[in-house]
């Protein structure tokens, strides 16, 4: 199994990244602030406007290190993509599979089943851990709706009806998500899921975590030789990493939502970590982002037993493992794509 390496987060907006030998150097106003050998990291996430030198980009692509640029508020801008390499046969199989509506639908079903089951787990956890304080009846009825929709995923005839089911399930889930927020109710609530821009603190927190997850999922897909831009559920659109979005569906509840809830319920983030702008958009402060990044990074080294591999792995490798089993399925080594079920 691959080793989980560290990710470097650059949050000072004036930083510029350069290369020196095998080192990544972060410069702020021309002065060296930080230096680390490239082989100690597997990703760089850069929140800033200054950017990085082409030499550094080369160092990253040569070493398979993902390099993403985000705005200071965490909106995704760009990702450095090196020479296309890896297994051309696997990629061709991926394209052919994506062109075939039936097999695409089969794989997409896996992603959505994973998503719905994991959403149920999040809801169930809320009832189990905080049964006395949450309105269980509301959560239970949402859960019942999710159960009701599960058979439909298997039965649906085409991608559009699957999208419909997915949309419904997401709605039922986010309708009661607010019930799971137990502390700091004045600052954190979720009346609906909104984005681009997020309009309240909770939505801003979720969007930020999803952006971090997207960086990791895209890197994971590239590592196993899949093309993150050709998806089975999300349709092709220039500049949209459809396959990464597909794979994220089943991982969001586990890696994003649960962490967001923990951060709020354990009061690790507070209302003062968010700023409301004139146009109603909510962004996180630099301090808030640092707290979330710290929690995210810490979460990634927790060990879990992967349900399919039955092997202990760090949480941070889950996207990689899912990318790997997806590649195996496309190659024909296994009969179906096993979604990730959290426990």
């Amino acid at each position, binding site marked *: 199994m691959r080793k989980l390496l560290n990710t*470097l987060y650059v949050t000072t907006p004036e930083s510029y990244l350069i290369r020196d030998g095998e080192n990544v150097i972060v410069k702020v106003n021309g002065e060296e602030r930080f230096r680390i050998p490239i082989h100690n990291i597997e990703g760089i996430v850069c929140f800033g406007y200054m950017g990085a030198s082409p030499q550094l980009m080369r160092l990253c692509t040569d070493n398979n290190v993902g390099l993403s640029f985000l705005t200071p508020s965490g909106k995704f801008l760009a990702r450095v993509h090196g020479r296309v390499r890896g297994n051309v046969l696997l990629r061709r199989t991926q394209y052919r599979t994506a062109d075939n509506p039936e097999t695409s639908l089969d794989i997409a079903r896996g992603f959505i089943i994973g998503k719905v089951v994991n959403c149920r787990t999040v809801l169930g956890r809320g009832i189990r851990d905080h049964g006395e304080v949450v309105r269980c009846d509301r959560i239970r009825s949402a859960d019942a709706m999710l159960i009701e929709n599960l058979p439909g995923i298997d039965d649906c005839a085409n991608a559009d009806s699957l999208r419909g089911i997915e949309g419904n399930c997401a709605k039922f889930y986010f309708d009661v998500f607010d019930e799971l927020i137990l502390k700091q109710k004045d600052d954190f609530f979720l009346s609906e899921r909104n984005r681009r821009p997020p309009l309240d603190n909770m939505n801003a927190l979720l969007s930020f975590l999803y952006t971090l997850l997207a960086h990791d999922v895209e890197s994971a897909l590239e590592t196993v030789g899949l093309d993150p831009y050709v998806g089975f559920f999300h349709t092709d659109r220039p500049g949209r990493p459809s396959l990464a979005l597909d794979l994220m569906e089943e991982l969001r509840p586990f890696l994003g939502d649960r962490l967001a809830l923990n951060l709020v319920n354990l009061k690790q983030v507070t209302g003062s970590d968010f700023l409301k702008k004139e146009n109603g958009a909510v962004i996180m402060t630099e301090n808030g982002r640092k707290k979330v990044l710290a929690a995210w*990074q810490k979460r990634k080294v927790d060990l879990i037993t992967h349900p399919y591999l039955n092997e202990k792995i760090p949480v941070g490798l889950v996207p990689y493992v899912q990318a790997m089993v997806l590649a195996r399925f496309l190659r024909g080594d296994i009969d179906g794509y096993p979604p990730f079920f959290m426990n």
Partner: protein
Amino acid sequence: MMVLVTYDVSTESNEGKKRLRRVAKECVNYGQRVQNSVFECLVDPAQFAQLKHSLCGIIDEEKDSLRFYYLGKNWKRRVEHFGAKEGYDPEGLLIT
């Protein structure tokens, strides 16, 4: 695993000074400079073999010395720091 690399390179001659610079440069590629001629390198066995090979190729065994301390996987409890210029933990949160 964590390997501590320390060296003494004789700088009496110009060749020596050149070797010193080359050794330092090679070490920087693999790890963190914690003191002037002391490096903490978090490497896998293959990377370490490369590092060792290239360092041994640079030094003059008559005049210089090179030492590797193997701190293993649980190196964190084997390292304590006092005073200025505390380094970063390559396995911890990297944020600047």
